[in-house]
């Protein structure tokens, strides 16, 4: 069944989108910043993943270190770049973020080379035949499974733990949260850490799926993730997840059936604009 296969491929791509866009949503919800440089942490994760895996041979270790490095990178970005700009008009942080992103892409190119890097022994390449002519790489299946479980765990943490509830409270009313003794700075740190770690994690997955990390690998996610959080209604985690998966599936069908009218990026944005004309607040936002 071609349709099923296309849906599956859409979900694989959508999972990656979701991992990257979630971090953006957390940041937007908290600080109202369109954090373009988030995609640089995704690229950073990819590079760390390949480097660690090639050096140590352990994929698990490479996921862990990539997520940690990207996570701390995100916190550093927040502290050094965004925190001092919070009182400024929003475009200031947006442009600063764009500048940071351009500089990071170039830094990756200068440090790691323009040619990109690959795993010497790419893991999870085993093939799974699922019947009905469906066949996937192990990595493709695992990216969906791990995205689903990570987001599930996050949702649980957010609903059940003190710090999770504090984060939610901070998003809906920072002043109120502060008056209840929640440290704004701590909540922001945690959000940046978690969001960025997810992006780093996604970077390793993409490195595995393509067996290639490049300096420019973040450029598509940088703007596509913005479209996704808008579609999801800005700062809604379930909305972002749904929008990411939906966009993945739409792109999958679009590239096959609309390929000679519009390219993949144009399809994504045509969809975005069409949705906004009908539902100006986004697909999944509470109005």
């Amino acid at each position: 069944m071609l349709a099923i296969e296309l849906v599956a491929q859409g979900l694989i791509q959508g999972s990656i989108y979701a991992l990257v866009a979630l971090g953006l949503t957390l940041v937007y919800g908290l600080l109202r910043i369109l954090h373009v440089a988030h995609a640089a942490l995704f690229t950073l994760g990819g590079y760390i993943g390949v480097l660690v895996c090639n050096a140590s041979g352990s994929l698990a270790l490479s996921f862990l270190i990539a997520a940690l490095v990207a996570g701390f990178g995100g916190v550093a970005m927040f502290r050094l770049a965004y925190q001092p700009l919070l009182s400024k008009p929003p475009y200031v942080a947006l442009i600063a973020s764009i500048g940071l992103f351009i500089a990071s892409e170039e830094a990756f190119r200068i440090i790691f080379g323009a040619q990109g890097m690959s795993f010497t022994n790419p893991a999870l390449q085993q093939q799974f035949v699922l019947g009905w002519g469906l066949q996937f790489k192990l990595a493709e299946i695992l990216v969906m499974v791990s995205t689903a479980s990570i987001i599930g765990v996050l949702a649980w943490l957010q609903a059940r733990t003190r710090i999770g509830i504090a984060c939610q409270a901070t998003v809906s009313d920072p002043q109120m949260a502060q008056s209840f003794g929640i440290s704004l700075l701590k909540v922001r740190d945690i959000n940046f850490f978690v969001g960025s770690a997810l992006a780093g994690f996604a970077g390793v997955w993409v490195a595995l799926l393509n067996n290639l990390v490049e300096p420019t690998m973040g450029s598509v996610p940088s703007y596509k993730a913005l479209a996704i959080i808008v579609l999801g209604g800005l700062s809604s985690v379930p909305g972002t997840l749904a929008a990411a998966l939906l966009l993945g599936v739409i792109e999958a069908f679009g590239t096959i059936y609309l390929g000679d009218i519009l390219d993949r990026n144009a399809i994504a944005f045509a969809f975005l604009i069409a949705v906004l004309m009908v539902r100006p607040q986004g697909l999944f936002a509470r109005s």
Partner: protein
Amino acid sequence: MNYEISLITTMAIAVMFALSLNLITGFCGQISLGHATFQGIGAYAAAMLGKAGWPFLATLPVSLVLAGLLGVIVGLASLRVRADFLAITTMGVGFLFVGIVRQQDSLGGELGISSIPDHGLGNVGFMALALLMCASVAALSVYIKRSWMGRVFNGIAEDEDTMRVLGIDVPRYKLAAFALGTALAGMSGAFYTYHLTFIGADSFGFVESITVLSMVVFGGIGSVPGVIIAAALLSVLPAWFQVIGDYKLLVYGGLLFVMMRFSPGGMAGLAARLFPTSSLPNGGKP
């Protein structure tokens, strides 16, 4: 001399383009991440007409009007969404434009349009005309800033809700800013076409939209002299940056970041801080 003439023409076109965005983003406070689309509309209109035998000067008004029309349409659509979304919708329009042009064989598709006929003004004449139009756009900007329109724009940029309570038809003013800014971008596009004699869809993509926004912000959002200096500098910076070769874009991105981080008012803001006596009205918003 041709090198200098070419550089000055490049600068003049960039300044025109940046000032056109400054009307929308600087004066009226509406962030656009797709402004290159409108330069593209003007550029393609001029290229198609030029190839059909129109003289250069006749393509200018058509480019202007076409880009302005599209600007109004995009503006109308954008008014439906909340302010936060505007940046993203305009970005989407940019990707749509590139996607559509790439697919149109009549617009040259991926291959773009080359062998655009000569403008017939000579290099010096063309430069002079570009400078003249650039000066006109600058004069118009200064005039708008002094007119009641500029005062209202300034108010909308700072606080739309208050302007509404003052009886201002905010959507119409935003549309007016879009129409003016995009029309002037279209005109800069016609100059671009005849200057480079080659255009392709990627010449008006996301990167170009970001670049022009950077020019505006770098100069000092809303400050006419600041934006002129920034656009003139940044448009030829890559040529100067040849010296630092490999590190060019790194420095460019870094500069943008450092400027925003330490002087969000751009160069105009920096100047206002360094020379507190010199008054740069509105340029140096804290």
